[in-house]
């Protein structure tokens, strides 16, 4: 085994990435993980939540930036603030519930009290502190993230005061958020229907690296594909099972289909999206199955036939926003990946409701989530097993390098400043994430 490199210099880090391959230490070395937290998660734009989770002043949800616990809250002025969930006194976690409503945040230890903008507004026994103690000091607060911005209701925060604007950072990926939001007849989407929280013993990067991987379903998900293909459609269903079974059958699309019908597109800053692979008339609104008729009618009433057709013709599957967000408009799913340690990762999965769409579509969203993205689902569980086996495998130096070269010689320039795979099975989107990784990790 080669001598361990110290990952302190740009040269050390650059040596870990080669054309079409990545050194295994990028997934297994705690020192590199610590550096990722400082240089990626403390620096770039990180998704922290959706505006619909904090509709009224005082409403809050707890979230994370990297390993840091944060609170996203709507302040009395109507603006959303993202605060470190930490008391300026002894460092106690101030907000202890996932979500709620608060006029102010009170620390359970000595009663230090903060406004929903994070400012310290009350300190019991204040006369006892030395002269340098200043409750007006912005650091004597639940410190606010340096920058908060949102696009179409999706809220991001950055702990760095400098860097590109959110829209510059997202670039052409704004069109994927448009695709999510445009599908609501009333023009609004909202987080609804609960959240899945699942974890695995593997590195955080594995998750997004799988979500645009068109070559894995036929193998990883074979057990659910086969079980669904053999399912008797005459068995009783209340609608949920039918959606689930149809979805699992779609995962069995042959390699030829993935290579000829589905594309993969990448964009600067590590972002990418995979083309949709669905053709089941009960799963694709654009197919105009009778159950979607009311939806299409509501869309056409609100937006006109031409605009509705334009929206329905956008056919994207997962959109990955580097470093840790993935979402998908067809079933209104959004996943946020939280690194815990070099070999432990937690993921929160949310569903969205399209306001003005028939209730049945939201029921289908829930049915899809349960079968595909849920902690006890028939599909995701095989992905989690795979991440765990990678996490175990990469502890060994038997193979020093990870191969991410599929499609390397056949990638083509894409539209809007990006690159595309010649077909959807290209690993171009992983190489694209490593371009972003290298840029952030080697930037002083």
């Amino acid at each position, binding site marked *: 085994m080669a001598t361990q490199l110290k990952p302190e210099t740009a040269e050390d880090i650059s040596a870990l990435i080669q054309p079409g391959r990545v050194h295994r230490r990028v997934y297994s070395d705690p020192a590199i993980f610590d550096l990722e937290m400082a240089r990626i998660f403390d620096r770039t734009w990180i998704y922290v939540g959706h505006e619909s989770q904090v509709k009224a002043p005082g409403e809050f949800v707890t979230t994370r930036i990297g390993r840091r616990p944060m609170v996203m809250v709507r302040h009395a002025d109507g603006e959303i603030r993202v605060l470190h969930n930490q008391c300026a006194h002894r460092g106690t976690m101030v907000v202890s519930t996932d979500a709620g409503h608060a006029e102010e945040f009170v620390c359970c230890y000595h009663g230090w009290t903060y406004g929903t903008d994070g400012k310290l507004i009350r300190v019991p026994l204040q006369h006892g502190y030395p002269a340098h103690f200043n409750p007006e000091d912005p650091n004597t607060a639940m410190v606010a993230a340096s920058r908060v911005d949102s696009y179409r209701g999706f809220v991001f925060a950055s702990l760095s005061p400098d860097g590109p604007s959110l829209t510059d950072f997202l670039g052409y990926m704004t069109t994927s958020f448009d695709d999510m939001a445009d599908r609501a007849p009333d023009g609004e989407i909202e987080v*609804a*229907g*609960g*959240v*899945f*929280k*699942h*974890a*695995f*013993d593997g590195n955080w990067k594995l998750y997004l690296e799988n979500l645009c991987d068109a070559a894995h379903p036929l193998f*990883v998900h*074979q*057990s*659910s594909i*086969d*079980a*669904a293909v*053999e*399912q*008797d*459609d005459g*068995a*009783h*269903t*209340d*609608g*949920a*099972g*039918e959606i*689930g*079974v149809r979805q*699992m059958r779609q995962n069995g699309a042959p390699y030829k289909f993935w290579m000829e019908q589905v594309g993969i597109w990448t964009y600067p800053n590590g972002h990418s999206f995979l083309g949709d692979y669905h053709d089941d008339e009960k799963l694709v609104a654009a197919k105009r199955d009778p159950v979607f008729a009311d939806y299409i009618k509501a869309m056409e009433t609100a937006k006109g036939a031409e605009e509705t057709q334009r929206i329905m013709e956008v056919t994207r599957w997962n959109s990955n926003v580097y470093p840790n967000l993935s979402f998908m408009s067809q079933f209104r799913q959004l996943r946020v990946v939280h690194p815990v340690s070099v070999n432990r990762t*937690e993921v929160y999965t949310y*569903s969205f409701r399209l306001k003005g769409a028939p209730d049945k579509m*939201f*029921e289908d969203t*829930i*049915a899809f*989530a*349960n*079968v595909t993205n*849920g*902690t*006890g689902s*028939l599909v*995701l*569980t*095989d992905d*989690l*097993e*795979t991440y*765990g086996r990678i996490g175990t495998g990469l502890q060994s130096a038997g193979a020093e390098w990870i191969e991410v070269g599929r499609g390397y010689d056949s990638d083509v320039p894409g539209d809007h400043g990006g690159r595309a795979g010649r077909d959807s099975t290209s690993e171009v989107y992983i190489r694209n994430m490593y371009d972003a990784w290298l840029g952030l990790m080697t930037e002083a």
Partner: protein
Amino acid sequence: MATIVEATGPTLASPEIEAFLLHEARLLDERRWDEWLSMFSDDGWYWVPIEEGQADPRHTVSLMYDDRQLLETRVRRLMQGKLHTQAPPSRTSRIVANATVEKDAGAPLLVRSKFQMIEYRRNRQRHFAGTCWHALKPGGAAGYRICWKKVELADCDSMMDGLTVPF
């Protein structure tokens, strides 16, 4: 024993119902998935909510929610040789207790019980506990058939690694 239960409250489950619950736990521990499936009625459903007091499996996600069609697919997947999450398989050990029949439930019979389950797989052991609700009607080889089963896990809304084995 039965006399100490409040007159208006639930009654202790009969030996036949207890035997039914123990039989089900045994089938699950022994990975006799298709026999477990056959305990459900033809329109039976199985539900593991993700929220405490969750009212509805259709408008909020669940750890597992299977109508009969999906339950059949889940069971067929559990019996697949290519099921990565069960290579090697989990070994489980279940204790079922505190079985009562809820008095005001009418037909079908509503049975409440407590369970604890250890799941061991590949050097890792997990502990689950919670309340089970079985809606039963007479029939089938085991004396009853399950119209629906709801499993309320104590840690339903916690951060979890993947769940493959039904409760």
